[in-house]
């Protein structure tokens, strides 16, 4: 029996048009369209792209809920055994559309999905848990290279075969742990890894850590008595009542608050928004998280040039690296514009 496949693509790959046609409403066409033709060749006789659903990227992203419903309706009518989305390469809105369609197909129709994206496509972080996303290059020039692993994985999924590791199949790690039997016990594997590491030999960790970037240290401050110092904190120190409603975990924002007229933090003027640690001590005396009292004192004594008029606060609890990076970039820009020479960042 031939495997039935429905393919989701955007207006550009359907040949309808570029940005000027990005508001194109969902439509369905019989058979393979655009990149679908290369996929059909890769599938041969075993699978057939029975229909292609096309939607403009802007239309999809601006009407996410309605567009998802329409697209899913069109897909469902064609009774697919598997759905292909994209590949979207590094096109952000296309990636998000592919991811949202993939998630809805898996959740609502219970049909497996294969998509393809460049690792930095925002659709990856949002939807890699829902679908297999084959790693592609960042532009459509990588179409040929994307088709083979996407088609291979699609056939495997449709046949109900066991899916290998991300390295074996070429998909972006989904953050899903799978039990497996190892021939050696953990302690032995760990010691063997350690010995390899000590010898400077190559080894493969079983638990990769996320990659954090490194920055060159800033130059030392020459004259602290003339320097403008600013306070930044991930411990959630906010004015009483948390005016910006910074979330107690997985913060989506940071706040900027004036220190004018404040010489000391106390339960009347401030509190912590941070969840995940006992807030009693911080709420009793927020100087324990953000040392305003001491720095104001040192400013009066001339021990520092001045204390920047604003403090910046977010909550570090469960906050994504991507969000933290964005906050940092915005805060740094503000600090530079204000002529700040040094920053004390406090964390709980």
């Amino acid at each position, binding site marked *: 029996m031939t495997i039935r496949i429905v393919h989701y693509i955007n207006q550009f790959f359907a040949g309808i048009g570029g940005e000027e046609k990005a508001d194109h409403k969902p439509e369905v066409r019989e058979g393979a369209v655009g990149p679908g033709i290369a996929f059909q060749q890769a599938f041969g006789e075993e699978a057939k792209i029975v229909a292609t659903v096309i939607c403009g990227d802007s239309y999809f992203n601006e009407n996410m809920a309605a567009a998802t419903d329409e697209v899913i309706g069109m897909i469902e009518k064609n009774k697919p055994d598997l759905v292909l989305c994209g590949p979207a390469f590094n096109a952000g809105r296309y990636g998000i559309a592919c991811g949202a369609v993939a998630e809805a197909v898996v959740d609502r129709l219970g049909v497996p999905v294969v998509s393809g994206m460049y690792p930095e496509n925002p659709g990856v972080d949002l939807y890699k848990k829902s679908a297999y996303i084959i790693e592609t290059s960042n532009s459509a020039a990588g179409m040929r290279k994307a088709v083979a692993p996407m088609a291979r994985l699609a056939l495997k999924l449709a046949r109900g075969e066991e899916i290998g590791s991300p390295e074996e199949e070429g998909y972006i790690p989904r953050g899903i742990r799978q039990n497996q039997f190892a021939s050696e016990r953990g302690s032995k594997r760990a010691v063997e890894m350690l010995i390899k590491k000590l010898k400077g030999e190559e080894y493969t960790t079983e638990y990769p*850590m996320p990659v*954090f*970037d*490194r*920055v060159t*240290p*800033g*130059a*030392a*401050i*020459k004259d*602290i008595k003339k*320097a403008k*110092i600013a306070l930044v904190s991930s*411990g959630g120190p906010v004015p009483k009542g948390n005016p910006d409603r910074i979330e107690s975990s997985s913060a989506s924002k940071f706040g900027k608050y004036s220190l004018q007229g404040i010489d000391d933090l106390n339960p009347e003027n401030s509190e912590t928004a941070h969840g995940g*640690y*006992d*807030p*009693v*001590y*911080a709420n*009793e*005396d927020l*100087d*324990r*998280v*953000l*040392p305003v*009292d*001491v*720095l104001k*004192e*040192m400013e009066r004594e001339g*021990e*520092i040039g001045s204390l920047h008029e604003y403090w910046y606060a977010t909550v570090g609890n469960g906050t994504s690296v991507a969000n933290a990076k964005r906050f940092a970039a915005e805060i740094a820009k503000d600090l530079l514009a204000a002529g700040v020479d*040094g*920053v*004390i*960042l*406090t*964390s*709980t």
Partner: protein
Amino acid sequence: MVHMCTVVPISLTVGANRIVPTVAIPHPLGNPSLSREDEKKLRRKLVEKALNALQTEVTGQTVFE
């Protein structure tokens, strides 16, 4: 920038270059078991250490114990 925090390994992992270890997770710059006066002295000491770190040239990640 100087990072004042209690869990120094996290600070090292995320890449801070000047690190001053602090008292405890829920009260990095204080100690509720001390009198208010002594607690403020402790805080001032830590802040002075942080300012000292800002005035120190470093070439890589440095913990100011």
